[in-house]
């Protein structure tokens, strides 16, 4: 895989490739074509290396402002939690701010604050990440504190109890008081009956209440070790500076554990369509969702992910998509309608559609019409022009993304903790540019005719609710 300290040099072809498309001002509209974009390499001169203790290092230089984004990503998330301890990955993320044997609670945050830095952390099913954004001269200080809390976390019950209440309030804010989020938990559980993606990242309320200091430390000792971590620095630094500072800080942290392969139960696609319905007085308009399990970029053994990406865009990715044009613009049946692809995951990906009828009475009609649009796409395929248009806008988004160092750091962090490599990220534009109309039709037929889960979120006592629910 990646040799120690061996830089992977990739030419920054970005500027070059766009140079091709510079139109003379008098010309009519010049459309960039997918071929122009296909030479883009995301991140340009990205540097990749590894410390002796197994910690990966990725540097994304961006010298526009004297600022760096420093992130440490752990290859552990909610999907790696022991049964009955849902929420422990996220709870530990909160507790990582409670101090170490060297730096008492609040010291790290105070140091960041005193240099005008920003900090935060986040947890998903597959990763947990911590970041600071600071003026570049403070980078090594950030590394020193972050390396310290990789091995020296100290917790007391007095810290753990109020923080658990904070997490319960976070759950209340994000989930319990939002009907759509509560229904989302049920939908996820139905999609993944035997896989941990069916359990919410923040945890079930009853299980969060049981989490304690010992659970947190056990999880920490098992997964927080340099050989399970990735350092990503984006901003005004050179790879040499980063590697020097990384060896002086993270390089001193011993391998604390061997987390091993991330093997989870194989995702099962169960036969038959299933439906969940929820009524709630806080719902203003009925909303329908449908979800299918599809490959993620990592679980994609048959090179279909790029085609699914293009499919999601053509079918329902914005105002020019088939669903929106037909059902919101032409038929005036929907106020919202679209589709999206959750493509970045260690295990399965998901394809989802959603719709909100303009008139609540047309709920079933909207659902039938959405099916008709999908059926038409499966039967008759998509046009060259549609594919080219989607490719253009997806590839342009990669250029806009390079405008923000924080975005770049996250793109690489997400990819590397969900099974992808730096090279795969950089070559994503090529794989999108290679998608054909036939590819799109094929994946649509293969996945969207298969079993799905439907979720209906309804205002209370809808007259037609009975029909929708009990089929």
């Amino acid at each position, binding site marked *: 895989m990646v040799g120690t300290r061996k830089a992977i040099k990739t030419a920054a072809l970005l500027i070059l490739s766009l140079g091709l498309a510079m139109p003379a001002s008098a010309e009519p509209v010049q459309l960039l074509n997918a071929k122009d974009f296909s030479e883009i390499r995301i991140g340009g001169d990205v540097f990749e290396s590894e410390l002796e203790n197994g910690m990966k290092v990725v540097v994304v230089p961006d010298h526009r*402002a004297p*600022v760096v984004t420093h992130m440490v990503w752990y290859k552990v998330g909610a999907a790696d939690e022991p049964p009955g301890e849902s929420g422990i990955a996220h709870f530990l*993320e909160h507790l990582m701010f409670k101090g170490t044997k060297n730096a008492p609670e609040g010291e790290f945050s105070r140091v960041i604050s005193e240099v005008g830095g920003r900090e935060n952390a986040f947890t998903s099913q597959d990763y947990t990440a911590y970041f600071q954004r600071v003026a570049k001269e403070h980078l090594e200080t950030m590394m020193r504190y972050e390396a310290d809390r990789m091995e020296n976390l100290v917790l007391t019950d007095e810290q753990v109890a109020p923080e658990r209440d904070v997490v319960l309030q976070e759950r209340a804010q994000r989930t*319990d008081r939002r009907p759509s989020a509560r229904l989302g938990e049920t939908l996820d559980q139905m999609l993944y009956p035997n896989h941990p993606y069916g359990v919410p990242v923040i945890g079930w309320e009853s299980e969060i209440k049981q989490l304690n200091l010992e659970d947190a430390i056990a999880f920490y000792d098992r997964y927080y070790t340099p050989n399970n971590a990735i350092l990503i620095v984006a901003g005004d630094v050179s790879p040499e500076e980063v590697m020097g500072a990384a060896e002086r800080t993270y390089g001193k942290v011993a391998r604390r554990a061997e987390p091993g392969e991330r093997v989870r139960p194989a995702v099962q696609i169960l036969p038959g369509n299933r439906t969940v319905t929820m009524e709630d007085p806080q719902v203003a308009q009925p909303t329908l969702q449908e979800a299918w399990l599809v490959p993620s970029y990592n679980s994609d053994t048959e090179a279909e992910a790029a085609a699914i990406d293009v499919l999601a865009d053509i079918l329902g990715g914005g105002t020019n998509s088939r669903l929106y044009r037909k059902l919101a613009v032409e038929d005036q049946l929907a106020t919202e309608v679209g589709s999206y692809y959750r493509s970045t995951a260690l295990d399965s990906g998901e394809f989802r559609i959603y719709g909100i009828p303009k008139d609540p009475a047309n709920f079933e009609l909207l659902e039938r019409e959405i099916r008709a649009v999908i059926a038409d796409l499966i039967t008759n395929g998509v046009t060259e022009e549609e594919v080219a248009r989607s490719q253009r*806008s997806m*590839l342009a988004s990669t250029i806009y993304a390079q405008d923000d160092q924080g975005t770049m750091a*996250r793109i690489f962090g997400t990819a590397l903790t969900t099974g992808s490599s730096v090279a795969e990220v950089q070559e994503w534009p090529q794989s999108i540019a290679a998608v054909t109309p036939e590819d799109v039709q094929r994946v649509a037929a293969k996945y969207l005719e298969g079993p799905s889960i439907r979720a209906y979120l309804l205002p209370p006592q809808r007259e037609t609710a009975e029909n929708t629910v009990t089929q």
Partner: protein
Amino acid sequence: MYHNSKNVWKSLRAGAVGTIVGLGFLAGVSATPAAAIEIQEVESPGGIKAWLVEDYTVPIIAMDFAFEGGTSQDPEDKLGLTSLLTTMLDEGAGEMDSQAFQQKLEDLTMELSFSAGRDYFYGSYKTLAANKDETSALVHAALTSPRFDQQPLERMKAKALAGIERSLKRPDSVAGLAFSKALFPDHPYGWPSSGTLETVTTLTADDLADQHKKIFARDGLTVGVVGAISAEDLAPLLDKVFGGLPETGNLTTIEDVGPQTGVVEHIAFDTPQTSIMFALPGLKRSDPDFVNAFIANHIMGGGTFSSWLYEEIREKRGLAYGVGSYLVPRQHTALWMGSTGTAGDKAPLAVDLIKQQLVRLAEEGPTEDELSKAKAFLTGSYALRFDSSSAIANQLVGIQTEELGIDYINTRNDLINEVTLDDVKAVSKKLLSGVEPAIVTVGPFGDEANAAGQ
């Protein structure tokens, strides 16, 4: 904070569905010395002025602009008109109907958005440098000859009405609406920006055309540009985008107003978390004491993981996930406000704690150590506001609309460093002493919460 991992690329694009949850409130962005930023003043042959920061790192151009006149320009019987206007400018213009316009936006792979605050109408677009001529023609059409066709108008009205219906069922937005009304009972600032079900239903294409004429004029225009373009090339481009706008608009005069104090309003709502909002009179941006108040606010409720409110409400007691306060200076009023959300039975305690911190700030004020830490953060973090083209363009417009001067980026940190402890104490006393905050709570509250089984 937790994070729903979806398609990273998709989430970069407009309309992405995604959930990111902060361990703390991500209250604003911040950063350091902005020595590297050089602002050029550009004037087009037609007299349009803009501030430009040239930067060729990424081959894109970001342009932000603002017209004076926001949602407070809505006629009282046509509330929601300006908000509706923000959704109609890219729904057909000139020769292009809605579909043709949307198609062209996508073909040119540009990003274009409009929004409205109470005082200003904002626009923003990003284009690949290679497409700058075609994209400016498209923006020009949207700004000068929007069509307001019946079909897209009905679609956008339906969307707006659905949004209002939803907001009436969400405790946070219910709190926000009630709060504006309580603070400004007899002033446009108290009206709902998105309108009401009654008013939006009646809005017509003629109404939109009137509002467009009222707001879209050159004398209220401010422009900031960042990216791969020289001053020489930008000058004619400005005329391509903004040329043809009338010299003056027809803005309604808005009276200056102070927010009501001491109002306490509770709205019972069946939800597991109670929303709490509070506000006091603040200071306008032009007030000589503004920077002093800005620091006082940072100490009380502005820091990410460090502020009095954060410490008392979240760290010590675990009452809330997010809590914070902020200054809201507007053209015709000024607020100092804050918010949090907590379990219903803890809501009275949270309200008491907020009041205690306000009294503490007025009577004791911060310590010298707290002041120096606040200064260190605020000066150090300033550079973080300038790390992407869009972020810089946004700053360029903000500095101009607040009339802070083209040298502001270089002098701003000095203004903060000059503030003394006496300044902060004096402004805190002036703003908080003897003033009762207005407080709005939505959800269960205290005993009522227990009765409801919370």
